[in-house]
């Protein structure tokens, strides 16, 4: 009988609670990235209705300028802000910025790369996304 490869599979991407905030940020980055890609493709298609004239454009607006459409747009705003802010943190991290300096590890062996600077940036990204969503909802529903 073949040995099981025993890979965790997609389940390994989920359950971010096991491994701390950075794993949650990784998971959110994937989720928001895919969500934004789907929105972007839909946005390119929806805006293409303008070439079919005023009636087609207004028909598209009737479809999207609804309560559900505004809620989706607010979620997209949140995803965009989180993905951008966390993306900048990750880009800097990938270059070795803010990951700490190598040194002599001592018990309890707290990893220097998972430091409060990166954790604060992740929390700030989530906070900014929430603020942006609230502002977006205020603009969209405020009229």
């Amino acid at each position, binding site marked *: 009988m073949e040995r099981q490869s025993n*890979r965790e599979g997609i389940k390994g991407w989920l359950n971010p609670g096991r491994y701390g905030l950075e*794993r949650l940020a990784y998971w959110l980055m994937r989720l928001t990235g895919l969500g934004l890609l789907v929105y972007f493709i839909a946005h390119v298609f929806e805006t293409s209705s303008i070439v079919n004239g005023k009636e087609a454009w207004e028909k598209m607006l009737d479809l999207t300028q609804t309560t559900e459409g505004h809620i989706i747009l607010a979620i997209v705003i949140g995803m965009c802000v989180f993905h951008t802010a966390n993306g900048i943190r990750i880009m800097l991290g990938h270059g070795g910025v803010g990951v700490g300096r190598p040194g002599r590890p001592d018990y309890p062996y707290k*990893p220097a790369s*998972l430091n409060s600077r990166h954790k604060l940036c992740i929390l700030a990204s989530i906070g900014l996304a929430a603020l942006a969503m609230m502002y977006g909802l205020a603009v969209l529903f405020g009229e």
Partner: protein
Amino acid sequence: MAAINPQLSNELPSPIVDPHTDSITLRISKFNPKTDSVVTFQEFKVPVHKWTTVLDAILSVKQHLDPSVAVRYSCRQASCGSCGMKINGKPALACYTKISELNSNIITVEPMNNYPILRDLAVDFTQFFSTHKKLKPYIIRDDSEVTDDSKEFLQTPKEVEEYLQFSYCIKCGLCNSACPTMATDSSFIGPQALAQAYRYVSDNRDTGKNERLKIVDDSHGIWRCHFAGSCSQVCPKGVDPAMGIQLLRGYLLGFRK
């Protein structure tokens, strides 16, 4: 002479009698790829003290209740890296994890993810070691310390500190088990090998930086690390592979020369 496995009943074995200790339920993953098609769990009631480690509990089961449990262990002091396993869902060294710090009366031990299972809690490290070898884990230079007319390569304490923590790696494999990319990507180099690549690149005695950077600059190389940090979360020796990987990537991105 091979040991003959005793016939075991499906009933919960009776606990070892010791009225002065607490006891926990130890669920051990049992799987023999030669005979089983699915993984099952066997439960054992094990007495524990304040200082009992998960490895102690497993060995207690082996000694008194079920000698057929397959588990790797050696030093019992987090030096050898043999006893890596998944404990209550998180990769850890069994000898280094006290039952009391898990805050649970039910302890589930399973083989580490992302490695083929040999039997029960023992996993196959063949790919792990071959990937490690691929990254040339040795000092690359033209001259040597061991010829008659050469002196030993001197390093200042500061130069040693550049790579020291990465040299603490005991090849336990916990980082590869925790990594979200390793969960799905069977071609990914993995945090252990990447951190070891940095260990040698940052060693000022080494001249093989460009060779190693070429190896890691691959579609399943360093670029599939997304700084989730799970490897550093689980590392028992303070190696912090995530730091090593990002510092190594700094060379490829031009942040470091």
